[in-house]
């Protein structure tokens, strides 16, 4: 936690943009952040929101270290901010810490992957992917 810095963002603040260099990440303490993607001709589409306790940003861990999505606060957010380069250096010096950290990040990536797959199944349809009833 020595590498963490307390930070706060007001509501409706862009934290990062798709394609920008991913050199920081956050652990959200309170508030909600919307992750979005720019759809040509349609503006930004929110794909997920993350809230208290969640890791915001994992693109800093692996090449090309660019954000895959944009992030905007939905309400005032308090978070711990980490400098990705410093964390990567620390992990290189201390492989045990490195493995622990990568495991936590991998778990987050796994959670988001599972959530995305479940959404693709049309979770709230009558019979999941076999939905045969009318769709709204």
């Amino acid at each position, binding site marked *: 936690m020595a590498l963490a810095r307390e930070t706060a963002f007001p509501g409706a603040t862009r934290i990062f943009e798709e394609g920008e260099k991913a050199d920081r990440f956050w652990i959200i303490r309170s508030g*909600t952040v*919307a992750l979005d993607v720019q759809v040509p001709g349609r503006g930004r*589409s*929110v*794909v*997920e*929101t*993350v*809230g*208290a*306790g*969640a890791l915001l940003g994992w693109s800093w861990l692996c090449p090309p270290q660019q954000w895959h999505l944009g992030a905007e606060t*939905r309400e005032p957010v308090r978070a711990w901010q980490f400098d990705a380069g410093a964390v990567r250096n620390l992990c290189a010096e201390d492989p045990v810490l490195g493995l622990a950290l990568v495991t936590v990040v991998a778990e987050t990536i796994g*959670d988001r992957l*599972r*959530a995305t797959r*479940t*959404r693709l*199944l*049309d*979770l*709230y*349809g*009558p*019979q*999941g*992917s076999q939905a045969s*009833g*009318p769709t*709204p």
Partner: protein
Amino acid sequence: MTLVPLPYRVVDRRAETHDTVTLVLEPAGEALNPFVPGQFAMVYAFGIGEIPVSVSRLPGGQRLAHTVRAVGAVSRALCGLPAGAAVGVRGPFGTNWDPAVARGQDLLIIGGGIGLAPLRPLIDSVLAEPYAYGRLNVLAGARTPGDLLYRDEFPAWGRPFGAATVDRPSGDWTGRVGVVTTLLDEALFTPANTTAFVCGPEVMIRATARALIHRGVRPDRIRVSLERNMRCATGHCGHCQLGPLLLCRDGPVVRYDRAEPLLTVREL
């Protein structure tokens, strides 16, 4: 429990979403025995057919509220009924949420889509006795904001934690986006001392139960409500069979440790 439908009258009708309506029914003569949260009735649209529908509120007296989503002939006919119309009702059928098992524990009440309807009488009964339970968390998921049920009741349910999330945000939606399990990160509960009540489509139930178990909620403390096609609702015709269970009699509310092995069997 009656085997022949008794005549009831629609005394109130409220459109919840573009395809979902809540009907309040009152006996036109003799009343059925009282229902408890989680149970269902067989509701007969005269001349069209009969379908199972859970009670979505027990408004007091001998009234029953049902929230029906129009998906086919019978449910569409029921959704189209005006106040004053007549229906036939049999019941009460099935097992119930049995909130007594959760006394003193934190509660997770998790609904997906129309699955929030059978959970609403449970929420009502918990709110009527707040000191009997630990922390209440109501989590709801829907495809779009327009599909969310009971939006105006949510503020009263959100103590200490309640949240709704949608897959596809639209218009002025400023709430959460993502599947219902993502709300578990913010919910306020101690997994080892929590009872969860889950209702929704089967894929949602499985995904939710797995996420709960992963967080440390015991499988025997997870109650799910399962739906199968029903005909007699009295345990005789076999239409509602799920493995060894006849869901009209042994369900719809089943403990997840009993349901899980049956839900992962591939149907032939």
